[in-house]
């Protein structure tokens, strides 16, 4: 008597509701759909993250454009600064001779007499600047010749130590030699230094300018 005078469509619909196989299929479909939920959530989260990133990227691009627009007036200043930067190794490698002479002067012990002082630049680099090329020395050779008045005391070593303290970092003594004694018991000597220009010449006695000139 079941399904008597019930249309086939209705019978099929009822089997979809109550039939074991259809319920099983329905359960699998629903569970399958639920399992897709985390993927969906992750997808939505990734999409939202992508959206946020796109928005921030757009904002950054706009900001970059604004900054580029703002730097246009500073372009000339930048060019000047670049030119100044080109002079930086030239200035850095220029040894202030007067300061070097001062350092030698203040380092000479009392019983030492200096006969000659030779300062030579060597090992040049070519530094192009607007308007030409500069030859920038990488090293200075300083040769001191003199005599010691008192024999027996290590005045030359004292002189050497004091002078090295004043010379720029990296400078080194190349030669320290006593020459043949003269008849008047004066002991001649030769000191030779390789001075590296480091740009820091405060040791030579230079002082920082209190208020540098503005550009």
């Amino acid at each position, binding site marked *: *008597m079941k399904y008597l005078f019930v249309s*086939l469509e209705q019978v099929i619909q009822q089997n979809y*509701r109550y039939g074991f196989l259809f319920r099983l299929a329905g359960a699998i479909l629903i569970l399958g759909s639920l399992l897709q939920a985390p993927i969906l959530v992750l997808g939505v989260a990734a999409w939202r993250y992508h959206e946020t990133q796109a928005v921030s990227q757009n904002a950054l691009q706009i900001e970059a454009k604004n900054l580029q627009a703002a730097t246009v007036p500073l372009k000339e200043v930048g060019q000047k600064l670049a030119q100044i930067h080109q002079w930086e190794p030239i200035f850095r490698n220029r040894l202030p001779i007067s300061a070097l002479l001062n350092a030698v002067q203040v380092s000479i012990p009392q019983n030492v007499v200096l006969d000659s002082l030779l300062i030579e630049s060597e090992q040049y680099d070519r530094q192009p600047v607007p308007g030409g090329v500069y030859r920038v020395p990488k090293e200075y050779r300083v040769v001191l010749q003199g005599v010691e008045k008192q024999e027996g005391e290590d005045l030359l070593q004292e002189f050497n130590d004091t002078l090295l303290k004043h010379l720029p970092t990296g400078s080194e003594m190349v030669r320290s030699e006593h020459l043949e004694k003269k008849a008047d018991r004066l002991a001649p000597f030769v000191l030779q230094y390789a001075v590296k220009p480091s740009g820091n010449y405060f040791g030579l006695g230079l002082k920082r300018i209190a208020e540098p000139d503005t550009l």
Partner: protein
Amino acid sequence: MAYSLTHYLRNFPLKYYLLGGLVRTDDPIISLFLSSENSVTIVSRKRHVIGLESDIASLPDAPPVLGDTTDMLAGSRSFSTKLLSRCRAKGAPRFIFVPDFGVNDLYCNIHATANLRESNIENLLESLHEEPRQVIGSWDDPRPFRWTILNSRFEVMKGNIERRTEQITVIGLPADYCEQVESWVESQRGTLLAVVPVPITCLKWFCEMIPQGSGTAFVMLLLSHSVVMAVVQRQEVILLRQYMEDLEIAYREIPSLAEELKADDYQIYVWSPKAIPVELARNLQGTELTGEVLRQIHGHSVQIRRADGSRVETNGAVPHLLHWLEGCIA
């Protein structure tokens, strides 16, 4: 139309599944006895009757009764929702319709297989769908009908008609009414288990529940618009007649029929959805299938377990019939 994955996915009962139907197996069953004079419903769950309502035809959004054109507007809640909430039952209702038709609305007749051209039930149904006159010579109803074929024990037949089968019962209902019932069931968000006309239900019940042995039983069904008389031998219905007249006219034909059938020892049974008037009962001989008789046949009364925990017993003809049919179908 056959089952297919596409059809399943298109008609996927997602809402039903998500509302618990996926794991629920005890949806309530609402059995409806629908007659223009007497409409009764019983609500069951897990084979237990949990509600009994009478005169439901007058309620808003009531189930359709053939010939009753009263169009009741539904309230905020549907008929079945109210009914189930009264019984404190949940779930999608499953409906069994037992409508009482007039003689002109129910075709119910026994045909000798020897007179049929078709040897197959499907062919026979196809012929009935195409043109009922091919099977029923005197057919003159222009309305489309839905048909089914039963054997003598009122079981639905399929496949070839076996040679030993001497007669079949052809049942026809107006297709309009069946569609009306289906759309009403859809509006109640339920499912339709069956539409079984009252005579078919009663005779099926009679054949299964009342043993006749080798004797002959004359079963008289007193319905709203007609009287149905059936002759049952060895649990098989061998003769079926519908009368538009009253019971007494049908009753007077029994002796002559018994003589034709050479049934010297016969019993008369009378079934009626409501109590037979005393004057009429006085003139009839036979067993009235009601009250204590029904309790003895079933071995128990119909127990209604109400929501408040109380139990009410009834031996009415209709509750017994609906409860039995529900057990048969569900």
